């Protein structure tokens, strides 16, 4: 692949990005590019600057120095009124879902298209297809707070995809979920990536990111500590299975510890 064609395929470019807050450096000279359709894990302990970096990419905040490129948008030349159009090219998913509690699943997904002025027919078609893709068509009239965490996150993902973004940004999307739901969400995100959408997923959970065959950008203390591509060991389902087994074992151990603790603190209490 030539250097020029690689440039064309870049969907996100981060160049010498430094962000300084009054409390000190949050990010220091961060450099990386993400190509169209690529899957990248952004890992690092909490406080490493993952969320700050993502905020720079959807331009909720701007670098102190350096530059961020997202499609044809350049952070140093951004005007306030351009930001909505950038957000339509970037799907964003958060740990806390950020759904509108007062409207149905369908309306939550549709809102992303209504703001663009799409026709009701276009909206209905797109939202229906997304509802099928995330497996929530039967819950389209439900309100978010009647859904499980995993279902709410799937609604949030569908909303993020509604305008066919070039990249999906996910900030700890599995952070609030039980292991089974987390696995479902991860599978869904892999599936979306397989459909051609680039993904940048921030997580502090190493069990997810090892050996899936994805690129990993490792942030530590606001710097890129490591940027490497792992190799997929076995197939995807096997890897997810391994993660699940690990979690299952861990959960059993934790339950046992809890039980022992409970019985030592309150030995008279019967089961």
């Amino acid at each position: 692949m030539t250097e020029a064609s690689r440039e064309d395929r870049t969907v996100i470019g981060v160049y010498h990005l430094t962000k300084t807050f009054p409390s000190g450096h949050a990010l220091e000279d961060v450099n990386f590019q993400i190509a169209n359709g690529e899957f990248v894990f952004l890992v690092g302990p909490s406080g490493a600057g993952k969320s700050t970096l993502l905020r720079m990419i959807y331009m909720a905040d701007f670098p102190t120095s350096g530059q961020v490129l997202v499609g044809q948008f350049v952070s140093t030349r951004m005007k306030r009124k351009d930001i909505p159009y950038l957000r339509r090219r970037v799907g964003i998913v958060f740990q806390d879902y950020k759904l509108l509690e007062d409207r149905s699943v369908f309306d939550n997904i549709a809102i992303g298209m209504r703001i663009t002025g799409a026709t009701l027919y276009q909206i209905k078609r797109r939202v229906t297809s997304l509802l099928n893709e995330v497996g929530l068509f039967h819950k389209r009239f439900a309100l978010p707070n009647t859904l499980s965490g995993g279902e709410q996150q799937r609604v949030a993902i569908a909303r993020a995809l509604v305008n066919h973004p070039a990249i999906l940004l996910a900030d700890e999307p599995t952070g609030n979920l039980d292991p089974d739901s987390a696995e479902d969400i991860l599978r869904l995100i892999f599936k979306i990536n397989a459909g051609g959408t680039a993904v940048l997923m921030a997580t502090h959970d190493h069990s997810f990111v090892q050996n899936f065959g994805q690129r990993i950008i490792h942030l530590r203390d606001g710097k890129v500590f490591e940027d490497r591509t792992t190799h997929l060991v076995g197939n995807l389902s096997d890897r997810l299975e391994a993660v699940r087994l690990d979690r299952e074992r861990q959960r059993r151990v934790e339950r046992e510890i809890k039980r022992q603790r409970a019985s030592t603190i309150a030995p008279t209490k019967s089961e």
Partner: protein
Amino acid sequence: MFRRVFYIVDEAVRTLRRHKGLTSISIVIMSLSLLMLAVFLLATDNILKVVGEAQEEMKIYVYLEDRTGQGAIEGLYQTILEQHEVQSVVFVSKDQALADFRDQLGDGADMLNALRANPLPNAFHVEPKPEFKNRDAMVALSARIQSMSGVEEVRYGKEFIDKFQSIVRGIYYIDGVVGFIVILSAVFIIANAVRLTVISRRRTIEILKLVGATDPYIVAPFVIEGAFQGGVAAVLSLVLLRVVTEATSNAIPDLTFFSPEKSLLYLVICVLIGSLGSFVALRKILRTQP
């Protein structure tokens, strides 16, 4: 374009229906503070009406010398009528004046029989144009008429006008101060009610921004809601005011309600206050949120 407008109006209607509780509370708060404003406006309206009626009564009485002949009287009539401040002139002859006086006295009119000659002079009743019914214009006009030949005396109720002028000035002053306080507090209360609505929907605004809504799309539904709340509150406060004026009609019999035109103007102003309030409160939040 049409579709966007439809979505925006749809958005506003949905939110109003979803947040019935909060909407009702802010409408009640708004109508009560608007009622305060309406009471003040009605009082002002009625004071202005009374002042206007009192000004109606301002007239100049011109008494003529007895030896002025018929021709001279007619000349004088023309000259006074030609003064630019004058609306109309009515001639009241000696005999006419005596007859009027007799009517007015009624039973006591017998004492007039003792008169051998009519002591009342011929007179003109001069009605100035409305814009000249103030102290300075009246004084100037009277002085000019006084200087005409054949005029014995000019009366325009100098004491009354002087007193009236200072009372009116006092009323205007008090009205202005009270009005300032009432309007300020109404605007303050309404702005706070609106701000509450906007703050309660911070999360919605944040999400709309994240999915790429432009500022007008976020602001417009709020402005529509604000206008709606202002309008409903205006109607409610007018109904309340009507109830209050009906209830107190024994104590204040001459109170007149707003004319339909003034009611409409009031409604329009309240709608503007509601929508502007939303707009201002929202702009602040839009700026502070990424």
